[in-house]
């Protein structure tokens, strides 16, 4: 590829170009698709996905086959926990936030300990955790009302708050800035990249590899919990498996954004673009009347295609 076109190899540029292309396509298929109101709605959905993908991104960056398949379960559980903690009352919000974060951190901690102390591969560990969470959700839902969102939370997620954007968009922007700061400007960030690109060298240079890996899973749990909390505000009331769709989608968003599954490189800015891209794609599929099952197939195929394109990066690892 010539020098002039080399920017095409930057996944972020590719993702942004695809976003514009998909918006144009969507508007052609269904006029009004790219209207301001509609784009805002897409961004809210993208923010929910993007917050889950932040945790997924961290776990994947940390390398050693890092992946968190339990995010969807944590999102669902946290939405239920939040709904029951606030039960439609604004006064319950602080307690709900605490309960959600604690829930996410707890299951993230279990994942992290399983991966580091018990040496269970992340894929297996988090898949098992997903099974546990799904079972737990069934148990919780039996006979117990799943709770309602407080008005302030719904407003935070759906009503314009500042410059016409709702609070959740601002929260997402803040998370984006925080992630960029942590990854690029803190020793913690350098260590995340270090364990992702050469775990042994990082260990020999004094990086507490195990503690770091546990921390990444905890953060992933917390981000999923925050997303579950916001999701309650978006849908008004929580129902089981509301988070199910986030597992595959969060992984695709990360890979679309230029973080290879082997970890060690990439970042969150690309993941944010990946999340937006994915939500637009999903919306287009809905517009042309493709059912949920069809959308899942398209998502799965997208991930496999991405692996084909970016897969070669894996071989470059020393």
């Amino acid at each position, binding site marked *: 590829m010539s020098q002039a076109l080399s920017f095409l190899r930057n996944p972020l540029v590719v993702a942004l170009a695809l976003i514009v292309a998909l918006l144009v396509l969507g508007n052609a298929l269904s006029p009004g698709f790219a209207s301001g109101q509609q784009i805002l709605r897409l961004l809210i959905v993208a923010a929910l996905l993007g917050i889950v993908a932040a945790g997924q991104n961290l776990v994947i960056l940390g390398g050693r086959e890092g992946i968190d398949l339990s995010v969807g379960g944590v999102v669902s559980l946290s939405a239920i926990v939040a709904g029951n903690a606030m039960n439609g009352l604004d006064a319950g919000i602080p307690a709900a936030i605490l309960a959600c974060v604690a829930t996410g951190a707890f299951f993230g901690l279990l994942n992290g300990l399983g991966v580091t102390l018990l040496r269970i591969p992340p894929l297996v560990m988090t898949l098992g955790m997903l099974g546990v969470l799904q079972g737990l959700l069934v148990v919780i839902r039996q006979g117990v009302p799943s709770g309602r969102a407080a008005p302030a939370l719904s407003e935070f997620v759906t009503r314009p708050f500042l410059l016409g954007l709702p609070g959740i968009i601002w929260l997402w922007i803040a998370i984006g800035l925080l992630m960029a700061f942590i990854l690029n*400007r803190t020793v913690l960030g350098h260590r995340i990249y270090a364990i992702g690109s050469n775990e042994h*060298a990082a260990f020999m240079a*004094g990086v507490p590899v195990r503690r770091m890996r546990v921390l990444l899973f905890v953060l992933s749990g917390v981000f999923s919990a925050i997303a579950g909390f916001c999701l309650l505000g978006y849908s008004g009331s929580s129902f089981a498996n509301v988070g199910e769709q986030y597992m595959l989608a969060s992984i695709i968003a990360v890979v679309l954004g230029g973080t290879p599954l082997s970890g060690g490189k990439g970042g969150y800015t690309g993941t944010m673009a990946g999340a937006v891209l994915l939500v637009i794609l999903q919306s287009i599929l809905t517009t042309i009347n493709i059912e949920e099952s069809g959308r899942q197939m398209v998502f799965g195929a997208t991930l496999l295609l991405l692996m084909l394109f970016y897969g070669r990066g894996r071989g470059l690892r020393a």
Partner: protein
Amino acid sequence: MTKLKLSGVSKAYGATMALRHGDLEIEAGEVHVLIGANGSGKSTLCKIVAGSVRPDRGTVLIDDRPVTVSGPRAAKALGIGIFYQELSLAEHRSVAENILMPDLPRKGRLFVNREALAETAGRYIALFAQVAGEDLTADTPVGRLRADQRQLVEIMKALASKAPVLIFDEPTSALDRAQVDRFFEILRGLRNEGRSIVFISHRMDEIFAIGDRVTVIRDGETIGTTTIADTSPAAVIRMMVGEQEGLAVPQDAPPASATGGGTALSVAHLSGQGFSDVSFTVARGEILGLGGLHGQGQSALLRALFGAPPAHSGAVTLAGAALRTENPRSAITSGLAYVSGDRGRDGVITGRPILENVTPVHALRNRLMLASPGRLAAGALPALKALNTKFAGLSHPISSLSGGNQQKIVIARWLIDRPDVLLLDDPTKGIDLSAKADLFALIRKLAEDGLAIILYSSEDAELLNNADRILVFNGGSVRRELAGAERTRYNLYHAAYEAA
């Protein structure tokens, strides 16, 4: 009658000449010993015979006919059997299957003939019945065997190939005395049958016990072949050393700083994986060399001092206080630094910028939270400059640099904040000559500034030229200490090869 003859074989890996001019003549019915120092080219020579390396030039003759050994299968077809130093056993399969792996007895075309397998393997196991231990049976999975038993199985596997030419590359390293004696009896029997045996060992007593003739290789060239009966261990070592004056002229006395600095690190009866009962002290300002053949416990000792993994028993004292290193992190905060020659595994954080590769230790020792590029660069630049590192910018990926400069980046990592003890584990592996010179000039300067330095090098010249004292390792323990005028290549080999 000449069974196997190599003449003028050479092999280069990139710019490195692994073998310059290798000659070897093996008669039928002899045990032929091949000997040479670290990196002399004897492994390459063996690999050429075994077919795992193709020579650039030269000829290989078997029974006076020129042959091309195009791969391990071709070697087998030509009647060459090899004992591999890196054990090549299948852990989960039985002893019998492993012994006969290259040629499993068949029933029809598809099925393994179990009876024949047990019977044939049983014959080889019976050869060592007295010395192998009762738990070595045909059905035992190899994974359950001890190290010496595995080595015996590997020997049986080579014997079972029934090849007229058998190559044994360090076959006795894990065996006890009785096992070695039995193995030698078997070898003598094979020799009397007219088989040709190439024997590589680093133990002079074994070489003189079993060998008929010996060929010495030095710096990639065959120096000569003599009859064992006509030579002595000292004479063989002199052939290995050669007339390499100028390379190994020890300074008459170590620099003043090497003696007056006071003890920095002392190690008492330290044992761990790969070394046992090692004791020594190193003074501030001193460069202590660890010498001997590859893999005799030098690296294992350095890594244990650094906590990767920690030693099993023994005591380490750093500047008067007991030192307990659980992992590299605690070693670093105690003031230790460790530079590995295996930068791909231990050093380079692949694909990340130079800045992130230089600063992890700095961040740890100063308990930094923020990674401000300006502040980190201020720490990194002087250390990089001291090593004459060539790079375009701190934000460039480390992979954009040459191997030597990558290693300098990794070394600079340890020098931003001065450690008390610098552990160098073959630090110049695979870097060019000028980078080596820069590195050793810096190491001497660091010693003069009061650092205690422990240097292991697989290149004897580096040790002889740079170390104030040398501990010669063999089989995981220190066999001899060379100081002052004793630091000669002759003495180094003498101790390394245990010439009595």
